[in-house]
């Protein structure tokens, strides 16, 4: 078994290299899982996945590396694929020794719904489990599929088997797995897409990334809403309810056996968002506004504004950002002027319950920063959070006045990608 152990360790190393976090305990679990499930391809794949993959978004990476590591052995060129060669063995890239794996005769049906199927696969009219069970002990699904592929390609059976294209096909199936597998809700596929896009820096965004992020935002919105609701509720917990505690004590003969606490009440916060929508900031700001809009219900009042050199109220109509009044998108950023405007409207917009969230890079085109106005606004508000999508090494360079603003706010947070925006917004309260 040392060959198999080495292969599994290499496989785990590949997963770690690809960014999947695997602890030593999980590696040991994987060994035990394979020992229990056996080394036939499909059960082994699922056993390894159960032990190693703790986030469905990592599953495509897992499938790809699994196919690469435990690829079926290539057949000699010119050889016809016959029953004698139909063993469910591994080989090639570091796979276990063929003698370590089971082999047997081919059965007709593909393995299971989880095993990606060729396009020509017909729905099974009867319970596929009944058919699949014997095949699990005899031949893995991928081999079965490749056989059918081979048969389809060869027609009269005279064509040669091409291991390269078979592996490519395996890989393709691996990539296709979520969409086939999850043809229903596709939640896992959505989660995987979100995972990728939420880590992409805004600085690398084009319209394409923005569209992808916008599509993936639904999951993030739900998560953020729940996270924020928890935070706002939890913050108010912990006070003892004396009247209920005494009443409970009466039941126990007067002894203070049980403490009763006040019911948790959501705090009545107000949210005021200021988002810079100048060229370099437009993607970050639009996504942040959408994300925050999803949690507007958690606040007593939530208002969003966008700015470049002036302030405009922001809203969404049919998913599109609408500004009132419209801003000149080619104007030069001037947050100092925006602060003056905000100060003039302070009574209308800001109270002691208001949390102000600013999304901007603090680049002011060398115009007066007027950070003192921001400090004054902070005295009248509950708190000010600043989300900055710019990398810290660029802060205070060129026309950046972020250092001055940083001293006037309660927290200056990095918001270089969607995940960091969510983290930042979750600190509200």
């Amino acid at each position, binding site marked *: 078994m040392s060959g198999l152990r080495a292969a599994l360790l290499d496989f785990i190393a590949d997963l770690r290299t690809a960014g999947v*976090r695997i*602890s030593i*305990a*999980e590696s040991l*679990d994987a060994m*035990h*899982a394979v020992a*229990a*499930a*056996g080394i036939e391809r*499909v*059960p082994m794949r*699922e*056993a390894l*996945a*159960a*032990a190693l*993959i*703790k*986030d*469905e978004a990592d*599953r495509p990476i897992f499938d790809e590396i699994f196919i690469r590591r435990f690829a079926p052995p290539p057949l000699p060129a010119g050889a016809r694929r016959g029953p004698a060669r139909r063993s469910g063995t591994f080989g090639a890239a570091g796979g276990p020794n063929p003698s370590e794996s089971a082999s047997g005769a081919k059965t007709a049906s593909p*393995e*299971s*719904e*989880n*095993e990606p199927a060729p396009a020509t696969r017909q*729905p*099974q009219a009867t*319970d596929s*489990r009944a058919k*699949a*069970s014997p095949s*699990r*002990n005899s031949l893995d699904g991928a081999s079965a599929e490749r056989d059918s592929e081979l048969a389809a390609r060869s027609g009269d059976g005279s064509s040669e088997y091409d291991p390269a294209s078979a592996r490519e096909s395996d890989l393709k199936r691996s990539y296709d797995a979520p969409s*086939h*597998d*999850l*043809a*229903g*809700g*596709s*939640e*896992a596929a959505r989660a995987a897409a979100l995972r990728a896009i939420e880590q992409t820096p805004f600085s690398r965004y084009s319209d394409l990334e923005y569209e992808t992020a916008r599509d993936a935002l*639904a999951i993030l919105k*739900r*998560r953020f809403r*729940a*996270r924020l609701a*928890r935070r706002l*509720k*939890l913050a108010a*917990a912990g006070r003892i309810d004396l009247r209920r505690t005494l009443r409970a004590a009466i*039941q*126990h*003969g007067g*002894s203070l*056996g*049980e403490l009763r606490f006040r019911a*948790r009440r959501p705090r009545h916060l107000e949210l005021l968002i200021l988002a810079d929508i100048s060229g370099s900031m437009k993607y970050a700001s639009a996504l942040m506004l959408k994300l925050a809009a999803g949690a507007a219900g958690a606040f007593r009042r939530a208002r969003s504004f966008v700015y470049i050199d002036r302030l405009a109220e922001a809203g969404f109509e049919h998913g599109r950002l609408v500004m009132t009044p419209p801003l000149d998108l080619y104007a030069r950023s001037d947050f100092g002027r925006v602060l003056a405007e905000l100060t003039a409207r302070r009574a209308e917009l800001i109270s002691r319950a208001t949390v102000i969230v600013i999304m901007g890079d603090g680049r002011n085109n060398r115009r007066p920063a007027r950070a003192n106005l921001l400090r004054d606004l902070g005295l009248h508000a509950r708190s000010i959070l600043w989300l900055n999508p710019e990398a810290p090494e660029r802060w205070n360079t060129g026309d950046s006045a972020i250092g001055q603003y940083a001293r006037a706010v309660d927290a200056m947070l990095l918001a270089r990608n969607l995940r960091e925006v969510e983290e930042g917004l979750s600190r509200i309260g």
Partner: protein
Amino acid sequence: MDITLESVAAGMRQARYITNQRVETAVFLALALGKPLLIEGPAGAGKTEVAKVIAAMLGTELIRLQCYEGLDEARALYEWNYQKQLLRLQADEASGQRWEEISEHLFSRAYLLERPLLRAISAPRKVVLLIDEIDKADEEFEAFLLEILSDFQVSVPELGTLKAHERPVVVLTSNRARELSEALRRRCLHLFIDFPGIEQERRIIELKVPDLDARLAADAARIVNAIRKLELKKAPSIAETLDWARALVRLGVKELDTPALRVTLGLLLKHEEDRERVEAKSSALAARPR
């Protein structure tokens, strides 16, 4: 029951749970390795049902701990029965007993209210412990759970350490309302259950609502699958699909055309916005692909 992959597959089939290799392997490993199984996936995809099926398969009791915000150790593990203790205290005082004698009785198992975790640990035989919607519990409770899941033992100061006679089969479910800690994930095997594909859902409908015409079952599975792909506030669950299928039988629907779909949409969709969105596409949804 001899735990093999085949026996698990057969057991789940016998419990009328339509499954796939991924689910079977994860359940098999949870039983064979004695590790907790963390099941994630959208609400209504059949996560809780897996625990019920395991209990049915093993012919044992299912102990369920429903998590919610504010759940604490007292609700999950044990509490002393204060009222009973007070009654005993008053009775013993009246009979002139000394405190040493009284306290001996007061902190015994007879006065302990066992909550789900302790019930699972102290059960004389292997049981299935379902910790449902762990993502709804607070992070503090999750940390507390780590200790239980590692050792399957509990320290009650007055009684000492209570250790499980038989390690329970532990199934945790999560809808991902919040991210669970890495520490918890590390201790569990992981399984993601998504909504079934068209074919699998058709089989579920046929199994659970045998009175529905096979053609209608296929149409229902196809339509529900298409509806789930829309951006909705709440996608229809499998249970809602089955309710819909039963309603189609009761209403005597022969053809799942646009009017029939519109009339019965309320069984699948529970938000008005979702209903409006789907109604707008009902003709396309009802049309059978050529």
